[in-house]
């Protein structure tokens, strides 16, 4: 009788291990593989705009960390990560001389630039396995006061991308105060809170300046 229980235990354990592999490990691997494929799109935009747009790695890494803090479920986190790589893909349709204009853009040109979210979403919708990412591509510059109902992940991308841009061009403190000022108006207040605490945590953890680490990433 003792032997039978042992056998049963081993059988159950090995079945559990197999199931874990097939339903946890493999899907994660597929997701990684998928991100690697989409990285080409991000890199394309990055090269086309000489590094001004499309940079994905720092945003992907920070966004996942903040999303974890916000309790965004795994499925949504993965969707968000795909959106990070695809978000600026609409810029393939924006003329090169506007993307790379050394002087400030005219209002008309700025309008055209703002259409990259819409164009990107319509490109994404046409790719069979990626249609579910299109809403996030469309909303990755969402303004909280205009569309408070947008997915939390979209609010997160919108705020975080602005944060990274300011933190790189100025410093992390300026970026943080910009987020605080915009909380409730341009940015989702909950998202702003989460980003700020994530950043504070990292500073405490000894990451001296995220600006530097973001620069190292590239």
């Amino acid at each position, binding site marked *: 009788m003792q032997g039978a229980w042992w056998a049963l235990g081993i*059988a159950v354990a090995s*079945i559990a291990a*197999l*199931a874990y*592999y*097939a*339903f946890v490990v*493999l*899907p994660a691997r*597929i997701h990684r*593989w*998928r991100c*690697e*494929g*989409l*990285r*080409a*799109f991000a*890199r*394309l935009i990055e*090269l*086309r705009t000489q590094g001004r747009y499309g940079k994905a790695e720092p945003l992907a890494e920070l966004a996942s960390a903040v999303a974890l803090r916000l309790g965004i479920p795994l499925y949504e986190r993965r969707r968000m990560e795909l959106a990070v790589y695809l978000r600026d893909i609409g810029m*393939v349709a924006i*003329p*090169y*001389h506007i993307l*790379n204009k050394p002087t400030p853009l005219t209002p008309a040109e700025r309008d055209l630039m703002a259409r990259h979210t819409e164009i990107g979403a319509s490109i994404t919708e046409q*790719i*069979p*396995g*990626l249609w579910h990412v299109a809403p996030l591509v469309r909303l990755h510059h969402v303004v909280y006061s205009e569309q408070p109902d947008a997915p939390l992940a979209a609010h997160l991308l919108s705020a975080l991308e602005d944060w990274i841009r300011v933190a790189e061009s100025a410093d992390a403190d300026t970026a943080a105060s910009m987020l605080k000022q915009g909380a409730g108006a341009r940015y989702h207040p909950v998202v702003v809170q989460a980003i700020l605490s994530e950043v504070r945590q990292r500073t405490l953890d000894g990451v001296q300046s995220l600006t530097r680490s973001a620069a190292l990433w590239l």
Partner: protein
Amino acid sequence: MLVLGAAAVAVLMHAGAPLLQAQFLASFAGVALLAVAAEVLLIRYPLRPEYSDRGIWLSVSTPIVIAVILVYGWQYGVWLDALITLLAGTVTVYLRSTRLRWVAVNSFQSILSAWAAGIAATAVFGVGLSVWSLHAVGALGLGLLVYMLVNGALVSVTVALAEGVRLRWVLAQTLLSLPRDILLMTPISFLAMAALHAYGAMGLLGVLAPYLALRQAFVLAARQQELYHQTIRSLGFLVQRAHPYTGGHLQRVSMWARRVAERMGLPPERCELVYEAALLHDLGKTVLDERILNKPDRLTPEEWEEIRKHPQLGAEILRDTPFLAPIISWIALHHERPDGAGYPFGLKGDQIPLEARVIAVVDAFDAMIGGEAPNQRRPHKRPLSLDEALAELEQGAGKQFDPQVAAVFRQVVREWRTHREARTGA
């Protein structure tokens, strides 16, 4: 449909009578419960994804049904299959909003298939086989074969009638994957049989769980393949719209490049990669200023300088995509020439990978016959005829083109032309 239904019910009634006195009833109930649960829980996947959603489904239940037929007798198998298809089908109606009518049709088909399989297996191998024998494996294989043949034929007829497709085509689609499926299902069926024989319904549980994991791995492998092609297709789409190729340039170049690679004796998966690399060889142009790419007249030296960056830019785009790593160097080097006059590095002869040499020849040839943007045509201004282009190819062999590749490619083009002429009747 009515005939099908009547036949199926008749088989069920015929099978039902001796079943009631049998001693396996409790065990059978357990097996049925498990099989139905498995059938519902598993996402069934279509054998041929490009085919309609009502296509053939490889389900877990088939190997189990065959195992039950051999262990308990064909009557049990028929009833089990009826239960599975009806119950699981009804549940999927709610889960996946399929039509109830199809559940009935599916059940009838399964019952008849199980009956045929049972009859065939018992007729050839008899009843009461010992589990650990070659005969048992043979009986399983035969049972699966008959089941899938009958089911495939019935389903094909139904699909052909319902969707107005030609029966022969549907049948071919169905039968194509038959050997592979039987090969896959026989071991599972054997395991199920052994487990049933030794432990009854509980044993089946032990077989199903690993099967489920295995199947999941299968689905994900297919998914991975799909993602791979999806990435390449999407990138190809971007290349196509970035650059004003005349119709079909990329397709022609890819097709010819693969053909040449095959002739040069490269292994099949390498040839597929050559096809994809040829499709994406101008990926770098998506990064360039489209005012240069679209410029109708001759380019200035500075503009040429920009254009000459595209092989390396293409490689740069794919830098972080490990599964495309093999094609990166081919893309980066597709404008190198064997005489060292190419760009970006001016490599010579064997320093250039064979695949890059193939793409260079094919791309240049298609440009000669007018597939390239007007401003980037090489020394000649008007598109050449096929013969002129072939002559050009021969002249350039050893200088601009790899002689061996050029020779193989000339052959490929000649064959292509004969084929085209034969088809158009010219």
